[in-house]
């Protein structure tokens, strides 16, 4: 398969000349899936090739007639916490293992309206709680770059599918880094929009004040094409906002929106502490590349950033305990007969048996930090720290075009390495939670391959200014000059 059609933008160009190429493309994707999905296990629910080919007929007709949508030809993988009508949606949990949503999430409506085809629902950490996709109730997903390692999480299935050429691009979700972490570990691009830019209607809630759906793709341009489609006001989500749009244009012609004297800030606390040596050295090399290409790099300190991780976890667990209170097996999900039993017994049994260990842990701790006597000390205090984090970050972003950091402080860990000790797991979110607490957008771009493993940099931008963020990301991507990257596992197919 031609390297050019590995990207959404390349595929679109090819289909504009030859719409029927879509059939060849679909055969290719399924050939790759047949060869490697058994090892990678990115999908919880994979649609059959025949179904997809039937849907492709309609798309090919539209392409021939010149009235196809912006995502025509794209085979998109959708994370399994985003509801898809008639297509099982599980959140990788036993408690929803047989849930068939009767409606589509707004983001799904939007991608379908632009003629994307959904190829399947991807694996994730249960209810998006985790950073490695090892917390799935069904099975872990493996990193296509090294099958003994994790792909990151919680959108691990989405990132692995894109990385391993099993999908054109994907939708993930990001509450504390769950789009950026797996993008970083799989050498793909992942963007978390400003809180509110993308509708959360149909996104099964984890932490409502931070959750966002974000695109994962092979290049910055691909991600920006999807962002254009999914972003914007939705009356069904009261927290959603108007979108400026023009993200794809910004990626294609970044210097039309950027001024020539670019300046990025490095928050030293996100580099100096807890970052593995190979990652740190790679990051410093990337910074030098940027400097030699005319981008000014400024080092500064943001002391409050050290407290962003505990603040994030207190708030996320508190909100999760509230959002997950709805799972009792009565209206949907894991069920136990109610005959002759008390509500206390039924609900407790369903939830204790249906939820995994990490989910139970977060619900219990979330209830704790909200409970009388502890609310002020923990939840209220964390919310105040959150205010300080946001104010400090916005102040830095007023004087700089973006904050730049390693996306993850470590190389992709081996399966089992981080999962036994919760604090060891939480620690790898240190650089990503900042953007979620503050509500600002952030993007992860592959920056290096170290010891045959992906390393990435993160750019954090100003709220509702994804146009500048995407433009800057495209410039940085160009300077780094690696994309699109293909893991050895699937190199023979290109």
């Amino acid at each position, binding site marked *: 398969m031609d390297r050019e059609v590995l990207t959404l933008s390349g595929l679109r160009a090819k289909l504009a000349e030859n719409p029927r190429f879509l059939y060849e493309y679909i055969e290719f994707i399924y050939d790759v899936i047949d060869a490697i999905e058994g090892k990678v296990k990115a999908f919880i629910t994979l649609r059959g090739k025949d179904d997809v080919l039937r849907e492709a007929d309609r798309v090919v007709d539209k392409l021939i007639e010149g009235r196809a949508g912006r995502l025509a030809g794209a085979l998109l993988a959708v994370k399994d916490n985003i509801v898809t009508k008639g297509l099982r949606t599980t959140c990788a949990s036993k408690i929803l293992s047989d849930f068939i949503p009767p409606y589509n999430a707004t983001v799904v409506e939007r991608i379908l309206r632009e003629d994307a085809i959904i190829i399947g629902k991807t694996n994730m950490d249960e209810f998006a709680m985790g950073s490695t996709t090892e917390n799935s109730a069904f099975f872990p997903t493996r990193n296509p770059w090294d099958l003994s390692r994790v792909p990151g999480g919680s959108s691990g299935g989405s990132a692995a599918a894109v990385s391993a050429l099993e999908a054109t691009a994907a939708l993930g979700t990001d509450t504390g880094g769950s789009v950026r972490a797996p993008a970083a570990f799989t050498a793909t691009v992942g963007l978390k929009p400003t809180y509110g830019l993308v509708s959360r209607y149909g996104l099964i809630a984890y932490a409502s004040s931070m959750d966002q759906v974000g695109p994962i793709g092979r290049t910055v341009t691909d991600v920006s094409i999807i962002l254009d489609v999914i972003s914007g006001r939705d009356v069904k989500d009261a927290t959603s906002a108007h979108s400026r749009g023009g993200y794809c244009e910004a990626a294609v012609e970044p210097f039309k929106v950027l001024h020539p004297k670019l300046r990025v800030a490095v928050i030293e606390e996100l580099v100096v502490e807890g970052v593995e040596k190979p990652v740190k050295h790679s990051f410093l090399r990337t910074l030098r590349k940027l400097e030699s290409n005319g981008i000014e790099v400024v080092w500064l300190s943001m002391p409050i950033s050290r407290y962003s991780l505990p603040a994030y976890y207190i708030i996320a667990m508190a909100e999760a305990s509230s959002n997950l209170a709805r799972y009792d097996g009565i209206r949907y999900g894991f069920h136990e007969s109610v005959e002759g039993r008390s509500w206390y017994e039924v609900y407790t049994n369903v939830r204790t048996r249906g939820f995994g260990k990490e989910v*139970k842990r977060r619900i219990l701790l979330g209830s704790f930090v909200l409970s009388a006597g502890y609310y002020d000390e923990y939840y209220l205090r964390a919310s105040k720290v959150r205010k300080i984090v946001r104010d400090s970050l916005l102040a830095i972003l007023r004087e700089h075009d973006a904050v730049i950091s390693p996306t993850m402080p470590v190389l992709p860990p081996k399966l089992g390495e981080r999962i036994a000790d919760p604090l060891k797991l939480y620690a790898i979110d240190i650089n990503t939670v900042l953007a979620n607490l503050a509500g600002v957008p952030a993007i992860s771009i592959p920056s290096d391959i170290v010891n045959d493993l992906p390393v990435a940099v993160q750019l954090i931008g100003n709220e509702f200014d994804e146009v500048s963020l995407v433009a800057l990301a495209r410039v940085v991507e160009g300077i780094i000059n690696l994309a699109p990257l293909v893991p050895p596992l699937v190199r023979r197919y290109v």
Partner: protein
Amino acid sequence: MRQEELIGWLRRVEKLALVEVGKDEEEHIIKDMRKIIEFFNTLMEVNVEGVEPLFMTPRKEPLTREDVPVKGMEQSEALLNAKEVINGFVKGPKTI
């Protein structure tokens, strides 16, 4: 936190959250919880005097839509995933 205190609050939050920890998991969970709460306690080092809490980033847009009725979901669709349904009602356990 002392061990008895931790076990005490574990029982309490189990009731609040309707999630139980099995006897065989209890020791392990308590150990994890202790570590995590210590981790949370580092926030005590921050001076938050005079700081207003931030629960959600500020919205600039109105949160309401036009007061025009729109078609909702069909009852049959809404009940598709319920396991015990009687005459369009979902059956639940006794509450009294």
